[in-house]
């Protein structure tokens, strides 16, 4: 971690950086096939996770306009004196989004911990 250490600002740096890499980082990058397979595995796992959760939202929220259009009885329904579409879009959507985000943060961090465990094992 780099707490307390000054880090260069990239904003002013329009030339590609190739020389200031951490030594360990370069080693991992140069571990040719093994290293590359590991990174690709991590990228795939993270992408699959993100796409799965995006699908949950695409169906859960993105399906609503279509549902309202094909099933007017849903839009006419009332819950506690409020029309269902107002309740779903005005209130329920926000906690739903937060819960999906919370699940993603947990699962993505778990994927990363697995990656770190694999990377470090040979060093011990």
């Amino acid at each position: 971690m780099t707490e307390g250490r000054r880090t260069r600002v990239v904003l002013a740096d329009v030339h590609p950086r190739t020389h200031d890499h951490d030594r360990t980082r370069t080693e991992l990058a140069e571990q040719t096939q093994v290293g590359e397979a590991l990174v690709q595995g991590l990228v795939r796992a993270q992408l699959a996770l993100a796409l799965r959760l995006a699908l949950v939202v695409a169906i859960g929220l993105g399906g609503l306009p279509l549902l309202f259009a094909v099933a007017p009885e849903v839009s006419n329904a009332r819950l506690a004196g409020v029309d269902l579409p107002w309740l779903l879009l005005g209130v329920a959507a926000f906690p739903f989004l937060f819960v999906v985000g919370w699940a993603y943060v947990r699962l993505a961090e778990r994927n990363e911990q697995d990656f770190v465990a694999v990377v470090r094992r040979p060093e011990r």
Partner: protein
Amino acid sequence: MDNPYIIPAILLVTLVTVAIGFYGLKLARTTSDFLVASRSVSPTWNAAAIGGEYLSAASFLGVAGLILKYGVDVLWYPVGFAAGYLALLLFVAAPLRRSGAFTLPDFCQLRLGSRRLRKLATAFVVFIGWLYLVPQLQGAGLTMTTVTGQPYALGALLVGAVVTCNVALGGMRAITFVQAFQYWLKLTALLVPAVFLLLQWQADGRPAVAAPDGPVFHTSTTVVIEDHATLTMADGSTMTVRAGEKLDFAAGEPVPQVSTVDDTRGPDWLLPGDSDQGLFATYSLILATFLGTMGLPHVLVRFYTNPDGNAARRTTLVVLGLVGLFYLLPTLYGVLGRVYTPQLLMTGRTDAVVVLLPGAALGGGLTGQLLAALVAAGAFAAFLSSSSGLLTSVAGVISTDVTGHGSVRDFRLATVIAGVVPIVLSLTISTLDVSQVVGLAFAVAASSFCPLLVLGIWWRGLTARGAAAGVLAGGGAAAGAVLLTVLGPPLSGWPAALVGQPAAWTVPLAFAVMVIVSLASRGRVPADVSEVMLRLHAPESALAGSPRR
């Protein structure tokens, strides 16, 4: 309106903003302090700052105004404005932070190593930034006219000048504190009056928000007509009115429909639309807002102030929570505005509902006046914070990529250039709905930077040529649609839907062109793609060395 507390409240917010800016100036000593707060910002402050910067005039005033006018269908604006952070979290947050890129042009350079793509990205950052700044200044002018009776230009100029000076002098360090303070101010400014408004609505015997015969005047009201128009009365009869004409309505009278104001009445306001065009517009709006947030320049800059990728993710989650909490409130204002300020449906100035509602519902007593002043202060906080963030990012890319080399002096000069253009635009162009202009900025961002970021982060096969072609095709088409909407003749039917809400065709176009051209120029995949992918995706702890060190 003669409320003695409003001008002091607006001045107080402005002065506090400037004071915190100067406090930050004293702390900022080096160029990196000046621009990125040295990454010493804690996640809670950072999340509140992102929220404070993001909740603009569109959120504070515009959403409630649209709901008052159009009803349930526009609830997709707040949902999309919040959901954009989820898309950002899922696909962009941690890798972008790990890339070390500070702006979108930086990301282009780091990932694809192309100076020309960098220039193209710079052009789009400036276009989106200005498109987003203009409605902030319009909102300021409108609020000034509505609550104090001062000329429109004064509000726009005041906010424009304060923000330009503050950004030029204080830089990013100051902005973080200002923004975090302004999130909480904005939340309070809507939450406290909302409680009183709900109690008042209860006390009034819960008047119906969607009366079967359309909205009615709650109290006797005098409406001043602004443009020559035809009124359609509830019984179907029509009458012609001239500009400047005053009409008196008694309590309980239905609100006539005005030919110059487009609004939705009866069940269409209450229930989701099911026409093909309406459905297309809704899905287009969903795509633009869900995918546009990640491409907004002032949002991305903030990610650099997180210490690492995991912190970036957690910060984004907190932002999602804070922004979601805020968006529960504008709906309430839009709905209650239907009861207490239906005259706005006749003047068309529905963006003013948030600032007018406390006075209209609670009366001219001390409580009503104080709450109206609080809301006006919150609205000014919204203009100041969003414009500061936008201006910082636009000035940042101009100073690095157009006018100079990113020194503090270049940045100050760029700030003045970046600030003057939207100020002039806001004084000259016609007033569209604040939220709709912001929605167009989202559409351009979703059709240019979203595909660039998502494919750049997750697909090794992206080439600079493919990225440039995709940004030009999708972003160019969306930008053309925006210009046609703002400057062109009024359209109707399908052309209006395709141009007014372009994201549903421009976003897929951008993705498709980017992938196809990248595949066609496969030989030009950057040689360091594996190294960059490692940097983007591997957690810092895997790269920081073995635990024994």
